[in-house]
């Protein structure tokens, strides 16, 4: 069994976990969400083993590099970080139903990696600019940050869906209290902000060690900075009176759109790389 096969299987395990969480919510059976959690842990294990296996395979091919350098690998890793973060939150907050709003995202990222025909799962060697430990630090922290924002996004949707006066015993009344969701959103945003900050910083230290410029206003860099600004705005809005709950949820959704654009959308922009003469894709891991 090779890594891509294992990761394809993982995709279906994650799908199953989401189904269980959603079923538990709709049919009001706690046992289903508990099962969902165990399936999620199984998927997470498969995801972990898949990444490690891919690492080993790259050594067998003679390239020997961390499996974090192209779209396929980054999406797989994105699922992994989201799953890890979500499991931690579920454990810490002892709230299970919130999985309904997080597990589908975990599934979607890895499904996109496994199923999209435009994303190749081939292991390719690393060009010189990417051979840096900063690269690993950069990718890991960026995706931890994205995971925080993704989970915050899921919770924001939950907040907005919950009616002010859910009927007793209704589907919506099973969601956590507004205060808890609000705090969860902010916790996730803070987690994401810290790691996006470290991600941008490690990326810029890496750029400085490879190219002698820590910041070059490359579209990818600029978009990650825009994302960072959006969440800095969220943080300050929350410190101003009156910005809680619904409004913060909207800002968090906008922030996540910026994340998605940084991740996928930048490739659609006029790709003018400041260092085109290098024939290297600048900051390619994020592409």
């Amino acid at each position, binding site marked *: 069994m090779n890594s891509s096969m294992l990761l394809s299987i993982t995709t279906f395990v994650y799908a199953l976990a989401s189904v269980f969480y959603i079923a538990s919510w709709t049919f009001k059976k706690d046992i289903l969400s508990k099962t969902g959690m165990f399936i999620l842990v199984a998927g997470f294990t498969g995801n972990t083993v898949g990444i490690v296996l891919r690492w080993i395979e790259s050594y067998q091919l*003679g*390239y020997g590099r961390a499996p974090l350098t192209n779209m396929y690998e980054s999406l797989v890793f994105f699922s992994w970080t989201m799953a890890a973060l979500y499991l931690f939150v579920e454990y*810490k*907050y002892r709230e299970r139903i919130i999985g309904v709003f997080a597990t589908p995202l975990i599934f979607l990222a890895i499904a996109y990696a496994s199923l999209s025909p435009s994303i190749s799962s081939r292991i*390719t*060697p690393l*060009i*010189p*600019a990417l*051979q*840096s430990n*900063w690269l690993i630090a950069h990718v890991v922290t960026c995706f931890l940050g994205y995971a925080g924002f993704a989970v915050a996004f899921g919770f924001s949707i939950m907040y907005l869906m919950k009616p002010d006066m859910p009927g007793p015993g209704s589907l919506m009344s099973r969601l956590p209290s507004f205060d*808890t969701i609000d*705090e969860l959103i902010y*916790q996730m945003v*803070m*987690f994401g*902000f*810290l790691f996006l*900050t*470290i991600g941008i*910083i490690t990326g*810029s*230290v*890496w750029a*400085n*060690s*490879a*190219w*002698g*410029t*820590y*910041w070059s*206003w490359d*579209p990818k860099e*600029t*978009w990650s*900075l*825009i994302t960072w*600004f*959006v969440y*800095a*705005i969220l943080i*300050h*809005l929350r*410190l*101003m009176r009156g910005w809680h709950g619904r409004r913060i949820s909207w800002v968090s959704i906008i922030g996540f759109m910026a994340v998605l654009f940084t991740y996928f959308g*930048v490739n659609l*922009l*006029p790709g*003018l790389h400041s*260092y085109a*003469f*290098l024939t290297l894709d600048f900051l390619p891991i994020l592409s």
Partner: protein
Amino acid sequence: MTKKISKTRAGNPVWNFFTSVKLTVVVLLLLASTSVIGTLIPQNSSEAFYIQKYGEVFYNLFSSLDIFDMYGSWWFILLLVLLSINIVVCSMDKLTNTWKIIFPQKVNFNIERFRRLKIRECFDIKGDVNDALARCEGIVRGEWQTTVKEDAVLKEGAVSKENALSQDSTGKTLMGGGVIFAESGRWTRLGVYVVHVSVLLMLAGAVAGSVWGYKSFVAIPEGETVGGSYLRGTNEYIPFGFDLRCNSFSVTFYDTGHPEEFKSSLTVIKEGEDVLTSDIVVNDPLRYGGLSFYQSSYGTHSARNVALKITSSGSGMSYVKVVEFGQTIDMPESAGTFTLNEFVRGYNFRGHDLGEGFVGTFIPASPMGDRGDESMGIQRDESMGDKGDQNVVSPGVEVYMPLKFPSFDKMRRGEFIFEVDSYEKKYYTGLQVTKDPGVWYVYAGFVLMIMGCWITFFMSHRQICVEITPKPGGIGVTIYGTSTRNSQGMKLKVMRLAKKLKTP
């Protein structure tokens, strides 16, 4: 006196404008939204490119707004300046207060404040009030000191006891219960300031870098020495203050054809002496004399050990001769001499560029011996087009050997056919040379930013209060807790403490 200052400050509309978090939100919003423009419109391209892409009218509009170099435009810089002033003023404004909280002259707690808190646990226990108090104090002291242990400041985690009902007229301690307060992490309130200062440091470093630093480029052929580099943009020559020699350059490839490593061996020469030799690869630059040299590109400069295959049309024999640039060799079969002149990047043949190749001159022994076919017109210089026709001493025939088309010279239909058999490339290495005295401020900002975010997001100033009151038939206990953030965590802490107190 401090009061006076803050009073005048508070009344000052300019001061109020800059202390407002609203301004922060507006400025950050403007920074975020205008930054988008620079990712939609390519930056720092040529005028021709822009006119072709956007037309004259939009070109004029955009360039009057500095859109083509927007991250360096006056209005973008102005936004950054506004942000900086905002941070400075706001922090000064808040710090006075925060400072008082963190370093109070006298630590005092107000039970009323705690009684209004949402996070609380109420329960009854049995037993003696003083015992309960002592036990509770022991537990709290143990718990809160461990959370504070990492911090050497004594004030933190200090447990003060306030026995509100504990004295009667005789001075004897009553079984009146008491209140225990504990706290930890006062200093974490400083985290926000660390974050804000780090933003200032990074901006200061960026300014220092653009004022006192530069970015430049130089290409050094293997074996050659240069003394300076050329600024990006203006191409102005900037001397290093020393010389730099490229000893060698090498590139290795994976079997897939992807490049694996670019490596240059560089030597710093000062006053004629080699002072430092170092290999650089991408991601591992050479730093010397305040400058950094980064491996950033490479190319073929020329070649050495060029092996030529010379085939005689007459005898059909092939000969291989190794030759260097500028060297003249005797032709086989005593047919004359051949000189290898140069390596060219491009070569025009009837309007086509034949690409990289070698150029040499063949001088036949007998002037008319190798006329070649003039109609081929392969000479680069038109004035030499009819040589050999005259009976004067011929400068010879120019021979061009393109790398891409090895048998090209056959078409000349000369007496000899020249072909490149093999050669060693002589590379040049392309170095990005930067001087950035601001980078260490930026890096210091990075470190502070991460530390500050960590402190503000994951640590907090926590306070608890345990109120123990005697009740008929037992003891009433209430635990209140508050924290600057993570109320869930505080709730759990309070619940855990309650559990401990309940189990005797």
